[in-house]
């Protein structure tokens, strides 16, 4: 009969009326966040950073500003530059994570938070001091060593620079160590 399908539609909406809502009331309840989530504030370990500026070069938008001056002794990697500026212009960042992918010393991580709203644009530039003082809850994005540790940002404790470990991908380590820019076909690299 005509109208039967319409009645079926009414039934569908009625069953949904009885269901528990799918949405959550945000500030009180939160949906589960996955460890790879590319969050807003970056996690940066000064002790690991050599000031090589690979991240700045690899960022598609060029929003990382690094100013260094020579010489200071770094605890892990031997000599390194003295970092004067390490600014990330968060208001233009698209959270692609390529800077993290490029960092050869595992000093830069994506963050896991997402509540970085500010009233002024200038407040959105993360300065080196903020990076130093921030809670270290790195995302496991592009850091398989954190994933194998079963690290869950937010619920696990913050990680110090000794805890985050080095990325274990053989080819990537080799690649990063040399920072080769040449290399035309896959067979050579394999």
């Amino acid at each position, binding site marked *: 009969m*005509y*109208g039967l*399908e*319409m009645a*079926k*539609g009414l*039934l*569908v*909406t009625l*069953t*949904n009326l009885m269901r528990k809502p*799918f949405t959550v009331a945000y500030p009180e309840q939160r*949906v589960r*966040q*996955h*460890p*790879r*989530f*590319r969050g807003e504030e970056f996690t940066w370990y000064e002790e690991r950073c050599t000031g090589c500026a690979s991240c700045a070069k*690899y960022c*598609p938008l060029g929003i990382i500003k690094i100013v260094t001056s020579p010489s200071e002794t770094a605890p892990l990697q031997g000599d390194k530059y003295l970092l004067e500026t390490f600014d990330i212009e968060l208001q233009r960042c*698209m*959270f*692609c*994570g*390529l800077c993290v*992918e*490029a960092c050869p010393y595992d000093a830069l991580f*994506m963050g896991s938070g997402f509540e970085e709203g500010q009233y002024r644009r200038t407040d959105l530039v993360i300065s080196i001091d903020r990076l130093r003082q921030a809670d270290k809850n790195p*995302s496991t*994005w*592009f850091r*398989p060593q954190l*994933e194998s540790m079963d690290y869950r940002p937010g619920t696990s404790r913050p990680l110090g620079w000794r805890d985050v470990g080095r990325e274990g991908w053989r*080819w*990537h380590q080799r*690649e*990063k160590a040399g*920072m*080769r*820019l*040449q*290399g*035309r*076909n*896959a067979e050579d*690299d*394999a």
Partner: protein
Amino acid sequence: MTIRTEPMTVNVGPQHPSTHGVFRVRITFDGEDIVEVEPVLGYLHRGTEKLAEERNYVQIVTLTDRLDYTSSMINNQAYCLAVEQLLGIEPPPRAKYLRTLTAELQRIASHLIAVGFFVQELGAFGTPLMYTFRSRERILDLFEMLCGARITVSYMRPGGVFADAPDDFWPALDQFLNDFEGELAELEDLLLNNEILMVRTRGVSPLPPDVAINCSVSGPVLRASGVNWDWRKMAPYDAYDQVDFDVPIGSSGDNYDRFWVRVQEVRQSLRIVRQCIEQIEPGPARLELPLVLRAAPGAEAYGRVEASKGELGFFLVSDGGISPYRCKIRSPSLINLTITEHLLIGWKLADMIVSLGSVDINMGEVDR
């Protein structure tokens, strides 16, 4: 007594609730009937093709996310296929399956949006849209698990995907597939045979196959007109030659057929996803490539995929540098818009919105 009447020109868009972003059409109405149509594009132009010339091959992946932001996985895939052709490399099998799987999930998500908004434009007060978004949200959750982002995924890289799926991805995917069966059945109950939807869309704005081909339309819009044309079957890429699926074909190419083809494609995508899960085998998910790639000078490549909206192609020319010399994007939404006049003229104001919705354009891709 005669009453003087005259046609009335209305600017529909760029600020209109249902022109899918900032699309603008100047429409001349005679009463409620459409007599003249003039689409005006370019409100969302961001110069993607030019930007691509300034970035290296991996960085461009982030630009492709922002073309058709409802199906970024498929954009990634098309671009990566083009770069792989350019470099003459082939991703490992596991990466191929992962790409196929995520692209199909993305196709489901994109079609869900298309169907939801199509019914929304028919006037349903948000309910079907909410139901489709509920399911889409689950897919985006899976993407977040895979690559840390929901919309702008940047998941694929030339030579594979950026990393293998985490361990908890597979049970979550199974869970989703099981739940989605029920949600899809519910959606079909609500919509597929609804009488109001039928009278609104059956026989409205039909697109004959010859017109569709002449306008070089592609994707569900073409298939709804009864043309069997699907790049996943014609020229299989990634793992599509390993999986078995059907291509739904419409008959008259009216609004209902375009809607129906999308709903059926969701079912077929589900089949593909299931087969991918069965067939995928352990192994590397990414080729060992340098961070900064270079192609041979003068190399050219055209990578195409069957995106959720039609044929999406990236044409790359290399001059031997670290970024392409030219990057041309064939975006399905733009070319599908060439049928606007055929669809709209002679129909009513209310049908106009629905017909535009049935083409399923995405302004991010139209204006690039």
